[in-house]
């Protein structure tokens, strides 16, 4: 019998009952599965949207397409209701709404995603720095952050755009900056929790430097909660960018995204046209889907207990 086998023998005679459950696999609810489907769908559309769309985003559909036998000879092409020609109807210029939504996916999701990434890069860096750094650094960063948080996000966006104009890089940079403040708060509090844990203390007693503690002890332990938070933040950024576009301050023509499509077609609303609704629904399918997934994940990591009460 090798030493190892002897040890194994001994372990079984410890009479110690395992108190750690094996790692659990995450299970998604029906809502979560629907969420995954929609997120996956939109990710695919970001890449292939323009190739599968029935028309070009800028095409104004020809009147002849809408001729109904026995009807008016040349009907208006704008604000057409859904038909075989245009599945989701047409917009105020007579362009196909579906095609424009498929083209716009790339703009809306792309800008929002890059802005979220930027917000994370900044927020996590500063948040962790505040968590591990000196009391003074933390004080300084936190006060500054509190002040920024108090300014309504959309107002801040407004002033910046008025000052420097609205191009896509500015939109991304500004949104990233604005949302870095809330990422900062999350990263800082997560970092602080890990910072006081015994294993970080153990690393400190060993004499490890700050870099090791940050990269090996803290970051691996905040990645999962931050990833969940990324989903939520991404949703808010999509809503923010869309709101800016809705106000006419976001993506500028001739480019268009979902938010500006709503703005353009708002005039059709009183007449019952669905053209402003469709792009909003596109936003909704994506954001609700992300939130459904996030809900499942956070339930998996601890929220579930509280769901079964009394």
């Amino acid at each position, binding site marked *: 019998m090798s030493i190892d086998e002897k040890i194994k023998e001994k372990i079984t005679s410890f009479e110690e009952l395992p108190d750690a459950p094996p790692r659990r696999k995450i299970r998604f609810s029906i809502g979560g599965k629907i969420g995954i489907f929609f997120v996956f769908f939109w990710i695919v559309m970001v890449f292939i949207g323009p190739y599968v769309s029935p028309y070009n985003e800028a095409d104004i559909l020809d009147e002849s397409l809408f001729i109904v036998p026995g009807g008016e000879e040349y009907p208006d092409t704008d604000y057409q209701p859904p038909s075989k020609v245009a599945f989701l109807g047409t917009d105020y210029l007579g362009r196909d709404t579906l095609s424009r939504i498929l083209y716009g996916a790339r703009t809306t999701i792309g800008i929002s995603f890059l802005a979220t990434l930027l917000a994370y890069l900044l927020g996590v860096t500063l948040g962790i720095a505040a968590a591990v750094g000196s009391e003074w650094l933390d004080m300084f960063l936190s006060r500054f952050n509190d002040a920024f948080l108090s300014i309504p996000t959309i107002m801040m966006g407004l*002033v910046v755009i008025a000052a420097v104009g609205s191009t896509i890089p500015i939109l991304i940079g500004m949104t990233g900056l604005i949302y870095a403040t809330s990422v900062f708060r999350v990263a800082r509090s997560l970092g602080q929790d890990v910072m006081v844990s015994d294993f970080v203390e153990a690393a400190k007693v060993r004499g490890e430097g700050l870099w090791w503690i940050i990269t090996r002890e803290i970051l691996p332990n905040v990645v999962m909660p931050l990833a969940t938070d990324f989903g939520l933040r991404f949703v808010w950024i999509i809503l923010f960018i869309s709101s800016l576009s809705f106000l006419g301050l976001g993506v500028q023509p001739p480019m268009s995204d979902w938010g500006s499509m709503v703005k353009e077609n708002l005039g059709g609303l*009183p007449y019952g046209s669905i053209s402003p609704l469709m792009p909003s629904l596109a936003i909704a399918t994506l954001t609700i889907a992300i*939130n459904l997934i996030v809900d499942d994940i956070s339930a998996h990591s601890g929220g579930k207990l509280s*769901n079964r009460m009394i």
Partner: protein
Amino acid sequence: MLFQAVLKRILIGFATLFVVSIIIFLGTSLLPGDVAEIILGQMATPESLAALREKLGMNHPPHTRYLLWLGNLLSGDLGMSKAGSGAGTIGTEISVMIAPRLVNTLRLAGMVALISIPLAMSLGLLASMYPGSRIDRTITFTTLSIISIPDFLVAMILVMIFAVQLGWLPSIAYMSGNETGWQLIRALLMPTLTLVTIVSAQIIRMTRATILNIMSSPYIEMAILKGVPRKRIILRHSLLNTIGPIVNVIALNLAWLIGGVVIVETVFAYPGLAKLMIDGVQTRDLPLVQACAMIFCGTYVVLIMIADMASIISNPRLRHPK
């Protein structure tokens, strides 16, 4: 101990306000365009431009201008409009421009708060009393959807239902400022309904989450094992401990109702303060933008401070020291 904690919180509030004022001043100074040029137009001579700049105090270095501005602000002087937004507002007192808008904003926010806070807290309580039940799942999914969609979609759906389909309400709220009684209520209804929907969703979710979180604590398990009825567990044992977080969410939402409702104001053409600030930005009216921004941020800081104070005071450890 209680007094110290409250005092500390107030000091932090003031420190934040101070930093906010610097950020706002610097941020708005970034706005391009020379107000003097805008006022005098293309035809201005260099001499007249210089004279006007002198008069507007634009020749001082930034820190002097900041201190002047802050001093005036503290003495209640919001300054005068420096730009004409077509209607020739140059020289109008900012306070005169703001006052009617502020009244509108407060009226809307007040209506929304009055309806949504009791409504949302009851629905949140209801959902948390029967977790996993059909009613809870319906509430959870609906509120999740509402917080996930853009404000303008909420507004549009309500317009589709109440204005287009049912024809009960006007879809747009052009207000002259002289409305009274029924007219005023009619104008307010759509924006109120929209905001109630959005704000309630937030508060419902938070109330439910906070209560459920408390419900998994050992002292609730103890209450169950003592045979305390469910209603009493929620109303007596858990609600007291949820005041802090719930008051915080309410404060955040109130702050948002003051400064964040620009989308709703735009959709319904409601003449509120947020809309005024947008106009100010577009006309480069610095004093107006600064004043509006200070009002928004000040409201936020003060509301959050009050919320924190509420949770400090509701904490028995601070209220009854050893």
